[in-house]
């Protein structure tokens, strides 16, 4: 099992969508933290992601980080492997799950 604390392992001030938008983008987070864990197609270990401790998350950050991951590796695999924890914002987890689910809809 892998554990990612975004505030500690990436940034306490997440940014926008793309790396060209500015620092700490969702694209940068996905490339640095998530894609390496999905590169092995046979790896089905759970990834526990702690969302607390940051200043907040822009919708574009979440969509690009997790929706983008689902577009690359499939929503089903993301739902199986990603487990989210948020005590500060009760709606955050469901929002991310929507992005993962919607990623399969074009």
């Amino acid at each position, binding site marked *: 099992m892998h554990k990612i604390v975004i505030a500690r392992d990436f*940034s*306490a*001030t*997440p*940014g*926008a*969508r793309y790396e060209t*938008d*500015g*620092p*700490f*983008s969702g694209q940068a987070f996905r490339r640095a933290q998530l894609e390496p864990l999905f590169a092995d197609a046979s790896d089905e270990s759970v990834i526990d992601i702690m969302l607390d401790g940051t*200043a*907040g*998350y*822009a*919708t*574009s*950050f979440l*969509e690009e980080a997790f*929706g983008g991951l689902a577009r690359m590796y499939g929503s089903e695999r993301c739902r199986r492997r990603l487990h989210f924890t948020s005590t*500060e*914002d009760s709606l955050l987890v469901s929002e991310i799950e929507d*992005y993962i689910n*919607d*990623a399969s*809809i*074009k």
Partner: protein
Amino acid sequence: MLTDNPAAERGWPIRGIVEAFHSGVTFFADRLALSRSEPRAVESASNESSAPIISARPGAPPMKKLYSTAEYARRVKKRQERELKARRRGAHSPKSADHTIVRKYSPPLSGQRRVQAPVEFSLIKNQSEMLAFYDEVYEQAHRRRRVWIDLSRVESFSADAILYMLSLFESLGAEGNYSVSGNVPKAEPARRVLTQSGFFKHVSTAGTSHASSPDVLEVKSGTLVEPVIAKAVVDFAALHRQRPADSRPQGVYRTLIECMANTKNHAYGEKRAGKWWLMALAERDKGRVQFAFLDNGKGIPSTLRKNPSERFRDLVLLGRDEQLIESALLGEFRTRTGQRYRGKGLPGIVSEQTSGEIADLCVVANRGCVRCRDWQSTQLPGKFNGTLLSWDFV
């Protein structure tokens, strides 16, 4: 011009001398003489001599006599005439090797066009006068290239109006080498807000016209998304709002990130890298924090019209600016990119008002204004270049 001192400007002190910099903006902030008839303090205080002190007129504070020979007086007069001719030509003073334009007199010089600023310097509360004021500055800058902004009668400043003035200077600078000068308000509260806002950090100054205050989050600007600045805004608001200690306005942070991203990606189009500005003013007595975010790009309605989706083509192309702004705030459009999973930014801002994190959300763009408190949509009396979002943290 020594004789161009209106009576209303006499006697109010302003500090420092602000110069025109690459943007061509000068804010004049020091006055060293009152009239042509009075002996002038030509040099700084370090040039004091042992000459006797005389009074210029009965009852007036004593003024130092700086020259004692007819020859010296003649030479000084000739030098003054040379300097006056140089100023009229637009040349720099020979003493200002660093391109500081040293203006010693508060009123406009010959060739400058005075533009009087409204008493209530607020775009949200005084749209008609403010838009006319900005239009006049812009028009005169294009026509005569030397504008004098008279802020002496301003009694109150709002964050949105300060930001728009800075963005106006930026636009003028990008379009050509214009010269804009001005003074500061007589009213102490207004002058304090202007100096503490960080305005004088964005126009070059040779004086000490800036003062920090814990009640002001100074003007910030950028071309990219700056999460650290967004966090600074949230922290500033949290410090000044009367909220429980465990209150975490994460929605506001999210909104600010989206605003910066919108500016970066949509406001200016693909060919131009644009800028955003923001600032906040704490109103301690009201327990609120006034906040404004602005860019002077194309504006929400113009951006929507550039590439309307088929579904909303008629509304976008035929609707008025305020209607388009309101529809965008309500999330009635897909985003400009047209992709399904994007476009939560503007409706997200509205939800922050619904949840009570912010109040009096107002969006101004092109010719439309929407006040989200009561969903009042109006057409502006003039054109606003760009998009302004203003709200109060409560």
